[in-house]
């Protein structure tokens, strides 16, 4: 499967989707006006990936901040991952947040309460 790498921009995060290694990374900020346009190809990639998973999947999310329209798209990503997990594959989400950033911590808790996959909250020192 093709590996997708998107460099970060002032409004969109760095993204790496590596099917061979089973690594999914989203880092930086996500504040596009049209989130669907940005996330749709990533969700399509996950759809394809989910039909052909043969290893563990590690998901690293390290967002600085994101807008509300991204929040819905990020949830869609987690839903795809949840369906992989439900098929019996190992999936683990690492949700990174800066030590005093309660907004990002709460956002992680929000997803955790909706999505049923192992979720690790990782505090980073400033």
């Amino acid at each position: 499967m093709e590996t997708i790498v998107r460099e970060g921009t002032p409004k969109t995060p760095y993204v790496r989707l590596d099917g061979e290694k089973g690594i999914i990374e989203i880092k930086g900020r996500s504040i596009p006006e049209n989130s669907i346009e940005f996330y749709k190809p990533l969700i399509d990639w996950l759809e394809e990936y989910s039909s052909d998973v043969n290893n563990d999947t590690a998901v690293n999310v390290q967002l600085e901040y994101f807008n509300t329209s991204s929040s819905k798209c990020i949830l869609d990503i987690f839903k795809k991952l949840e369906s992989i997990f439900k098929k019996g594959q190992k999936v683990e989400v690492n949700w990174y947040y800066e030590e005093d950033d309660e907004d990002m911590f709460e956002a992680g808790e929000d997803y955790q309460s909706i999505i049923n996959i192992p979720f690790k909250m990782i505090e980073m020192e400033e």
Partner: protein
Amino acid sequence: MAFNITEWYNDKLEGEVILNFNGSITPDLITEALGTIENSLNLKNEKNKIRKKVYNVFVECLQNLYHHVDKAPVDLHDNQQNNFGVIILSKDGSFYRISTGNFVDKSKINVIKDRIDQVNSLSDKEIRMLYLDIMSNGEFSDKGGGGLGMLDIVRKTGNKLEYYFYKYNDSHIFFSLDVYIS
């Protein structure tokens, strides 16, 4: 007395103004405005937590404008008719204030009012429940809005939204919103 947009604008320029803009709200303007506030010394010297909160709420306010403004009245400057909006970020004592202003059609007043009154009436816990509920429904408006902006602003700031509707003419209403981050 008729509503005077210049007076309104001048009233909002209280405190140390970090950014003030009036004109067409476009994606490029939003990127540029964010760049400006990121370079502000006031914010650079803030705690990480507050700084990010201000960026986040500022972007949400601007994108709310981008997704929701109606056409400005014809007697406003010609080049300002499309997507006309105002945004001011200032530091006033111990808090940051974000003021936005934009024109809305008279017919939308009740929808906006009900929405804000509802958000303002909820407890922190209720706001979170409603946020999760709307986030899970997966719906987007034609312009890509997710219907979470106001909720997110109240959730992040912990403060109620202050708003006013000013009658501009028979069809146009000027909607003014103040958000406080402390």
